[in-house]
C-alpha cells in the first residue's frame, strides 16, 4: 500500500497518534468497500479525505469512529484498541467526535437540549432527565454557539425552526460541546452554498489545533488549502497520502477518473 508519512507525523512522535488504522479490510457486495487501508492522524493534523462517490470515504469514517468494526485490520485510538469493557469503551467513544453527514440532530428537542446531548456520555441519569425539563448549563451552551458564530438567543428554539446553515452550525457546536480529541466529519459541506461552506470549513479547521486532530471527507478538492495533508481513496484503496500542497492536478484527475 502507498503510505507516506506526512510531515507532522514524523515530528510529533512524543504522543501516540490520535487515530491509527492498519491494513483495514471491509467487505462489500461486489468488491471490498475498504482494502488494505492504513493511515495515521497525529495531534494537530488536519487531514482531508478525497475520492469519488463510492470510493469508501464514509466507510472509512465509520471505521474511524467505531460504528463499523472492520473484518480485518487494527484500529487504534490514542494507541489503544477498542476497549472490551463497556464503561471504558464509552469513555473511549466520548473522545471521538463525529459531524454526521445527516447531522443527526434530535428534531423534537431545542437547540440547548441538543447541545447538551453531547454531554450525555459524561452525565448520569439525573442530569440527562433534567436536561429534558429545564435549561441546563446555559452558559456553556451559549459559548458553544458563539464559537460557531451563532446568536445565543437561538438556544431555546426547536432545531426544526432553524435554517439549513444554522442546523450545520448547531451540529458543529454540539460536537464542540462533546470536547472530543479526534474530530471526524463526513461531507459536512455537501449541502451548503459556497460562502457558508467556506465559513464552516474555516470554523472546523480552527477547532482542530493540537491536541486535537481532524479527518474530514471532502468532495471539493478546491477547498484543500487549509489542510495539512490529503488522502485520496479510490475503489476502497489509498491512492495517495501526502501534504495537501503536493496534490497535483494530474493526481486528482487520476483519483476522479471514470469509475469502472
Amino acid at each position: 500500500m502507498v503510505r507516506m508519512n506526512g510531515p507532522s507525523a514524523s515530528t510529533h512522535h512524543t504522543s501516540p497518534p490520535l487515530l491509527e488504522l492498519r491494513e483495514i479490510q471491509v467487505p462489500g457486495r461486489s468488491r471490498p468497500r475498504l482494502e488494505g487501508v492504513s493511515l495515521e492522524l497525529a495531534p494537530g493534523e488536519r487531514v482531508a479525505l478525497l475520492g469519488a462517490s463510492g470510493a469508501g470515504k464514509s466507510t472509512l469514517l465509520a471505521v474511524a469512529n467505531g460504528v463499523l468494526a472492520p473484518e480485518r485490520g487494527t484500529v487504534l485510538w490514542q494507541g489503544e484498541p477498542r476497549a472490551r469493557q463497556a464503561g471504558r469503551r464509552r469513555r473511549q467513544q466520548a473522545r471521538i467526535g463525529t459531524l454526521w453527514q445527516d447531522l443527526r440532530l434530535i428534531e423534537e428537542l431545542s437547540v440547548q437540549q441538543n447541545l447538551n446531548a453531547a454531554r450525555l456520555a459524561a452525565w448520569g441519569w439525573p442530569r440527562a432527565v433534567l436536561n429534558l425539563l429545564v435549561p441546563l448549563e446555559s452558559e456553556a451552551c451559549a459559548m458553544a454557539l458563539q464559537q460557531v458564530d451563532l446568536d445565543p438567543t437561538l438556544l431555546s428554539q426547536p432545531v426544526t425552526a432553524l435554517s439549513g446553515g444554522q442546523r450545520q452550525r448547531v451540529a458543529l457546536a454540539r460536537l464542540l460541546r462533546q470536547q472530543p480529541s479526534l474530530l471526524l466529519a463526513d461531507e459536512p459541506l455537501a449541502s451548503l452554498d459556497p460562502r457558508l461552506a467556506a465559513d464552516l470549513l474555516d470554523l472546523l479547521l480552527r477547532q482542530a489545533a493540537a491536541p486535537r486532530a481532524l479527518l474530514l471527507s471532502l468532495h471539493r478538492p478546491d477547498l484543500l488549502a487549509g489542510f495539512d495533508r490529503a488522502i485520496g481513496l479510490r475503489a476502497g484503496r489509498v491512492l495517495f497520502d501526502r501534504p495537501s500542497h503536493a496534490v497535483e492536478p494530474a493526481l486528482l484527475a487520476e483519483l476522479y477518473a471514470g469509475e469502472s
Partner: protein
Amino acid sequence: MRLALSRPAAPLLPLLPALVLLPVLLVLPALVHGGGWELIGQFAWAAITPSRDPLLLQSLLQGLGVTAGMALLGWALSLALGLMLGLASSRLLWRELCGTSLPAEAIRRLLALPRSIHELIWGLLLLQLLGQRPVVAVLAIAIPYGALVARVVSDLLDALPTGPLRALRAAGAAAPAALLTALGPPLLPGVISYGGYRLECALRSATLLGVFGLGGLGNELLLTLQSLQFQELWSGLWLLLALMLLLETAVGALRRRWAMPGRFGLRGTGPRRTGGLAEAEVGRRGRELLLAGLLLLPALLVVGQALAVQPAELLHWQPLPPVAPRGWADALALPWPGLVAGTLTLMLLAAGLAVGGAPLLLLLVAPWPWGQRVLQLLWALGRLWPPPLTALLLLFVLKPGVITAALALGFHNLGILGRLLLEGAEAAGPAAEQGLLAAGCGPRLALLYGRYSGLARSYLAYGAYRADVILRETVVVGLVAGTGLGSQLRESLSAFAWDQLAVLLLAYALLTLVGEDLSDRARRRLLGGA
C-alpha cells in the same frame, strides 16, 4: 398546546404515564397476603415443564380449533357487517348519492351503542337470551367488531382527498362509478391493515369468551387454573402462543405484501397515498385479494359446519324472567358514584401501567442484547393471557381490589403496546441513537434521546386510543376482581335483574362514549401538532 408539550420534552412523554407505578408500588405491600407464593412458584415452574399427555394435548388442540374457528367466523362476519355499515355511515357517500349527509349521521349515532359495549357483555347477554350455543360467541364478536370496523371505514372514507372524485364527476361519470374508482383503491390499504389487526384481536376475544364459558380453549384454561393443574394450563398456553405468533407473523407479512401503512397513524393518520406503486404491483394486489376472498368463503363454510354454528338458532329466544316490582327504583339506587369512580380509577391505573410500562421496560433492558427478546416473550404472553386469568392468578397472592384488577388489565395491554412500541422504534430509525452511542453515550440514554424523541407523539396517540379500549375492557376484570361497574354487572346478570342490567349497560355505554370522544381529541392533538 405547543407550550404544554414542549415541556417536558418529547423523549420523556412516553414515560410519564409510568408515574402511576409510584402509588401502585406504595400500596402493593399492603395488598399482599401470605398464602399463595408457593402456588406462584409452581405456576412459574410449570411454564418450562408443561404436560405432554397426548390425550390432554388432543383435547387442547380441539379447544384451540374451536377458539380459532369462533375468531375467524366472528371476524369475517364483522368485516362484512362493518364494510356495509361503514359505507352506509359515510357522509361523503350519502352526499354524493342523495345530496344529504343526514342519514350517515343517524347511522353513526346508532352504531355508537353496539360499539361501546364490550364483546364479553354481548356474549353474556346473548348467552342469557339464546342459551349455550356456538353461534353466541360468533355473534358476540361480530356485533361490536362490526360497529368498530364501520366507524374506521367511514372515518377513512371521509378523510380521503376528494379531488379525484370531483374530477371524475366533473367529467360526467355517474356517482357510483366515480365513487368506486376514485375512493376504492386509496381506501383499500387502510381497510386491509385494520382488518388484519382485527383478526388478531378476534383471537384474543375468542379466548376471553371461552374463559367465560362460551366454548373453546379459554374454558379449559380457566378450569386448569382453578384446579391448580398448572402443567396442563401451560400446555394450553404454549399452544395458544404458537397460534397467536403464527397469526401475527402471517398478518404482518400480508400487510407488508399488500403495501400497508402502519396501523393507527404511526406513519401519519390517514391511509398512505401510494403514489409510486408500479402498475403490475397494483394489479397483483387486486388479484391476490380477490383470490384470498374466494378462498376464505368456502373455508368459512367448512369452519361453520365443524363448529355446528346454525344461524337459525338465533330465532329461538328464551323468555326473560319477569322484572321484580320496584326493580327500576332499586336500579337507580345503586351506588353509582362509587361504581363509576372505581371504573375510571381502574382504567387510569391500567392505562398508565401499560402505556408507560412498555417504554420503561425497554429502557431497563437496553444494555443487554437478549433483553429485548425476553421482553418480546413476556409481551407475547401478556397479549395472549386473558386478563381475568391474570387476575385469578394474582389473587393467589394479592387481595382483590382495584390495584389487582389494574395489574391484570395493565399486563394484557402492556403486551399489545409493547409490540407497537418496538414497531415504532424500528420506524424511528437508528441514525440518532447510533450518533449518540458513537459519542460515548450509554445505551439507555441513547435509546431515550435517540429513539423515544421520534416516536413519542405517535406512540402516545396510540396510547390514547388504547386507553379508550382499556376503559371498555375494565368490565372484563371487574367481573373477576370485584371492582367498578363490572362487578355490579355480574351480580345483576346472575340475579337476572334486567332492569338493573339495562341501566348499568346504559351507564357503561355513556362512559365509554365519553372516553372515546376524549381519546379521539387527544389523538388528534398529538398527531396534528407534530
